[in-house]
């Protein structure tokens, strides 16, 4: 995927035969998907028996058509993939992507390695957003009162309505999520200007409004700073899940990993305070479970300690004791102070006072201008919850005449009933939603947007980095981008392409000096996908100490638990509820799929007497909210006074998944009693003192007699075998090998079990003389973010099997991430993430037992799996020590023809009854080999990137030729931290792992595991 392959369309409009393109593609796919599928059904396959052989011997195969384009664009060669730079719209982070387009249809998104902050990484949501393009439930045309209409009608009627409002000076409100597109913002401003009473209200369902408000108080400007985790040597995070879902996870993961580079011996120290076990907490060097109500006091304590070291005396009264031991806080304060100017305090709280304290800490530590930048702030979250408060007031009084809703779903992601009733008061509600979500179903008009890969758009996620989204395929249906719609309503309708170009000529081009002429600038920007321009000037006042107020009392109240509502990295605020891949993606910590649940600490669960899967009733009758009944999940490392429930579930978009997966006599539905996947907990959100609160509700728990087995991909949680079954004198299994930084610095080899090559019984017949592919995975870098899992799923056409099949332990992911807990004597729960796929063993046990030679070794060291030869004895899987193989228990459905367009034509869609597994993306290896042959060169290091490696934001995966001593992977194989899983079996895996190194002083005690 060299950048030489990247092309751009001057304009989609110039490209002839676009539609034929898609037709062609569709044809090809319709043939590929279903025809394979057909061949797989039993009757036809039975035709292979000898008897029928002669009957069919002389008959011809079904007629196949080959339909060329009428007129073929220069750069298009059927069968070759092109990469178009664009910008991801999976969330507001605005990461750069390359859309892989094959025969006219995008089939995969990959991170753009040249993008300034995402740097080639792409998260699970981003990877999976390609499926949204081929979502057959996406709206195909405008709706009026829920009925099909066309754009002329919709525009005419809306415009006449707006005209009347203008004349009556009615109130128009534009309710959106954070909009990072300058062109859209400009168009919207222009549109709103034409009304006497109009306002743009932006909110984020996963709100960070408190941070901006805090900066309003401390620095006089409402902004979201740009955090640089790579510059921080000490990171103190107060419930900020910055590796998982907070603001810009990919960017932060990349930076965080850069800050913990063992090869360069620079390793940041990361302390996490949080009520539940988050992805970020799982990577922390020191982690404290803190009840949400204690954060204020905790911050106050820390502030006092740091201030003391700064020689500042604060005349604050003595606050309550914090739940975190004093000496730990002292130690942290010391570390922070020692690393002042090179440290970072982040806070995910929605209490403005707490955010102010965090700012004060950073101020005391002199982190501004270092790890925190204010002058090119982040624009990734601009929501303002105060506006939201005033808006709902207006709505309830019926003051608003017209409400436009874009990019958010208030009827779902805000306290539902209240908002639904408020929205129903609006005379004209217009939604731009792509799908029939809760709000769209209330709207008078739905004027759907196309998928972001189908329209021109731009993004300025971080001030100074303007990036472009270019369409990679025609809209399949009558959809129209917001930019175009607004231009129509502003009375000068134009194509999105022209609009964007004009805007950039006028507003972006002037902000840079490099390119003298606009066309060159435009071409380069479209080619690269982004342009670095001068950031908009922001004026910040010096830190305002008056804003800082201590929080002395923790709002704890006995005999009730705090309900913590959190986003999962698959569902986020519910925007991904349409996406089966993300529903089936195991949660990185709990490994649960297809559900949200009430997670409890082991102690609390014990007290309630509930086990995993027992349904518990969450009761907040104090706030007269309706009860919530969810299955319990026991989560080590969670605070005892906390019950945590994921947001984003129970969306009506998930009703379609009732019958996903194979249907047979014992199959269960993938949805709950409500006909949806999970339940919506948003009604427990609180809009209080100007901020959406996620953890302020106190609830009572009671257990019901009901049960719901959770579809969990991993039921055993530690490397320790159960106590009573543990053989005398055996420790934890050395699957994940780890050590402490102290030990590592003494001896880089520490923690690695001895791994000399074992003797072979026979001289080997197999010299791997050409390239020999191998992989190294840095467990210390891996955060378990699971983007590799989805990347692998997209690349390799891995089917979705549905909740029931996952419950039966039959998920198909070739790449899984094993998660193991271990508890140190001070009660600290450690987590290790271990990505595991087929290990491509040199002495592969699976190969010896296959009777039909369906899995054998290639001369470049791959453990090949030949689907069409496999008869499905499953002997290989039984004999695989890593259980890296997956079996097609059924025909997994591929009957959604639109969705089939996402299938990768380079990978066979496997039939029922055959074994499948990871082969290091052999299709990419072959492509690279063939291309190299064509150019008469060798395959250079890095020319082959596996899908998992490509997407990894932490760059934890190295892949390449082990026979080339200079390749990165063979260098990594020499790394003293390298070990192999189950070395003692002498199956000789081609995958190496690098030990986990925790930034701690005390020597690692292996016995602590468990």
């Amino acid at each position, binding site marked *: 995927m060299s950048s030489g392959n990247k092309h751009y369309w001057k304009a989609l409009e110039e490209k002839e035969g676009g539609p034929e393109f898609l037709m062609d593609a569709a044809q090809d796919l319709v043939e590929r998907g279903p025809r394979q599928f057909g061949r797989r059904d039993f009757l036809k396959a039975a035709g292979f028996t000898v008897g029928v052989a002669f009957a069919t011997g002389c008959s011809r195969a079904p007629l196949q058509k080959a339909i060329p384009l009428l007129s073929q664009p220069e750069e298009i060669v059927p069968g070759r993939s092109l990469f178009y730079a664009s910008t991801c719209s999976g969330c507001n982070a605005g990461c750069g992507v390359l859309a892989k387009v094959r025969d006219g249809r995008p089939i995969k998104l990959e991170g753009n390695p040249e993008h300034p902050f995402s740097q080639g990484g792409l998260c699970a949501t981003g990877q999976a957003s390609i499926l949204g393009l081929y979502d057959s439930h996406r709206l195909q045309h405008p709706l009026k009162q829920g009925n099909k209409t066309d754009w002329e009608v919709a525009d005419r009627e809306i415009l006449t309505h707006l005209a009347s409002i203008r004349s009556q000076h009615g109130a128009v409100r534009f309710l959106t999520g954070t909009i990072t597109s300058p062109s859209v913002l400009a168009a919207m401003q222009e549109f709103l200007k034409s009304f006497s009473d109009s306002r743009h209200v932006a909110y984020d369902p996963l709100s960070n409004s408190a941070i901006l408000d805090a900066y309003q108080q401390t620095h006089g400007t409402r902004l979201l700073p740009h955090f640089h985790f790579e510059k921080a040597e000490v990171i103190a995070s107060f419930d900020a899940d910055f590796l998982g879902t907070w603001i810009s996870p990919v960017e932060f993961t990349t930076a965080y990993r850069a800050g913990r580079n063992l090869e360069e011996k620079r390793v940041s120290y990361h302390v996490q305070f949080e009520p539940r076990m988050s992805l970020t907490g799982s990577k922390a060097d020191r982690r404290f479970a803190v009840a949400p109500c204690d954060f204020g006091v905790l911050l106050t304590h820390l502030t006092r300690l740091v201030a003391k070291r700064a020689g500042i005396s604060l005349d604050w009264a003595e606050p309550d004791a914090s739940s975190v031991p004093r000496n730990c806080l002292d130690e942290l304060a010391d570390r922070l102070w020692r690393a002042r100017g090179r440290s970072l305090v982040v806070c995910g709280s929605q209490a403005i006072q707490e955010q102010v304290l965090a700012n004060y800490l950073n101020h005391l530590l002199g982190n501004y201008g270092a790890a925190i930048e204010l002058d090119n702030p982040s624009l990734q979250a601009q929501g303002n919850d105060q506006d939201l408060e005033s808006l709902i007031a207006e709505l309830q009084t019926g003051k608003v005449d017209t409400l436009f809703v874009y990019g958010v779903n208030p009827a779902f992601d805000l306290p539902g009933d209240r908002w639904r009733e408020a929205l129903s008061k609006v005379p004209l509600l217009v939604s731009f939603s792509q799908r029939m979500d809760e709000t769209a179903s209330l709207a008078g008009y739905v004027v759907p947007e196309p998928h972001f890969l189908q329209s021109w758009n731009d993004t300025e996620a971080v001030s100074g980095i303007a990036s472009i989204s270019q369409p990679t395929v025609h809209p399949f249906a009558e959809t129209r981008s917001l930019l175009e719609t607004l231009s129509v309503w502003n009375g000068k309708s134009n194509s999105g392409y022209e609009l964007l170009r004009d805007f950039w000529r006028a507003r972006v081009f002037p902000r840079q000096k490099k390119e003298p002429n606009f066309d060159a600038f435009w071409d380069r920007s479209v080619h690269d996908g982004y342009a670095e321009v001068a950031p908009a000037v922001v004026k910040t006042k010096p830190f305002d100490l008056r804003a800082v107020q201590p929080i002395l009392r923790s709002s704890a109240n006995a005999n009730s638990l705090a309900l913590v509502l959190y986003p999962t990295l698959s569902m986020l605020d519910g925007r991904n509820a349409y996406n089966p891949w993300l529903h089936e993606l195991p949660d990185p910590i709990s490994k649960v799929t297809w559900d949200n649940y009430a997670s409890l600490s082991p102690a609390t669960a014990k007290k309630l007497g509930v086990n995993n899967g027992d349904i518990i009733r969450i009761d907040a009758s104090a706030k007269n909210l309706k009860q919530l009944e969810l299955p319990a999940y026991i989560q080590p490392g969670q605070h005892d006074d906390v019950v945590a429930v994921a947001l984003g579930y129970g969306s009506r978009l998930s009703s379609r998944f009732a019958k996903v997966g194979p249907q047979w006599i014992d199959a269960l539905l993938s949805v709950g009693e409500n006909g949806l996947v999970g339940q919506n907990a948003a009604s427990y959100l609180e809009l209080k003192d100007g901020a959406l609160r996620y953890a302020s509700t106190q609830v009572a728990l009671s257990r019901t007699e009901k049960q719901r087995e959770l579809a969990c991909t991993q039921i055993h949680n530690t490397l320790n075998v159960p106590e009573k079954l543990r053989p005398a004198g055996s420790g934890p299994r050395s699957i994940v090998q780890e050590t402490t930084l102290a030990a590592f610095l003494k001896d880089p080899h520490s923690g690695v079990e001895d791994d000399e090559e074992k003797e072979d019984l026979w001289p080997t017949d197999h010299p791997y003389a050409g390239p020999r592919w191998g992989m190294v995975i840095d467990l210390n870098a891996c955060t378990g973010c699971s983007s590799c899992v989805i990347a692998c799923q997209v690349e390799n056409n891995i089917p979705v099997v549905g909740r029931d099949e996952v419950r039966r332990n039959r998920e198909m992911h070739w790449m899984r991430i094993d998660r193991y807990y271990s508890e140190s004597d001070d009660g600290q729960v450690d987590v290790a993430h271990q990505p595991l796929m087929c290990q491509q063993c040199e002495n592969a046990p699976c190969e010896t037992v296959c009777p039909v*030679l369906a899995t054998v070794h290639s001369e470049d060291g791959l453990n090949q799996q030949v689907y069409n030869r496999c008869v499905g004895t499953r002997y290989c899987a039984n004999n695989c020590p890593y259980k890296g193989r997956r079996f097609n228990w059924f025909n997994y459905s591929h009957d959604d023809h639109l969705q089939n367009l996402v299938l990768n034509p380079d990978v066979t869609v496997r039939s029922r009854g055959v074994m499948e597994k990871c082969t290091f993306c052999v299709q990419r290896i072959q492509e690279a080999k063939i291309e190299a042959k064509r150019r008469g060169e060798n395959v250079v290091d890095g020319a082959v990137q596996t899908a998992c490696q490509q997407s990894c934001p932490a760059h934890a995966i190295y892949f390449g030729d082990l026979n080339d001593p200079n390749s990165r992977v063979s260098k990594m194989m020499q790394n003293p931290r390298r070990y192999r899983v189950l070395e003692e079996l002498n199956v000789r895996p081609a995958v190496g792992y690098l030990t986990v190194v925790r930034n701690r002083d005390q020597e690692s005690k292996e016995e602590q595991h468990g």
Partner: protein
Amino acid sequence: MSKRLFVGVFENEQDTLAAVRASRQRGFKIVDVYAPYAVHGLEEAMGLAPSRLPWIVFALGLLGAGLKVWFEFWTTAIDWPVNVGGKPFNSLPAFIPVTFEVMVLFAAVGAVLSFFFVCRLFPGKRTLLPVIGVTDDRFALVLEETDSRFEPTEVQKMFETLHAIHVEEQITAEPE
């Protein structure tokens, strides 16, 4: 050409054995003895040569084993050598089980077929019984008139003294 046969029918194996021994002393030509089960000692009494079946079977067994071990070696090491689990192309030890099975198969099938062949047993063959009941509870000793020394009355007497329950004389026109 026709033959003159004397059939002595007995009730139990002891009498049959005695009769056989007597007839051989007297030098009568014993055509065959018919019995409902394999009477022990008859072999010696009739002085039959031991069967040569074992040798045939042995040869076939060797053949089967040889063919199979060659086939396995040829397919896995010569015709299409494949790297299976890092094992050498010629994994001789792994070839032994199948070789053994095929050896047994060849030997066993060979034994049965050659048995049918030498005994001229085949479906639909017309059964020739000297007397009714030799497949139930009768034993029949069949003598053939060879030369003038052969004295029918003497045969008759001998049979009676050895308590044959019934003696009969048969002329057959079966071709030699």
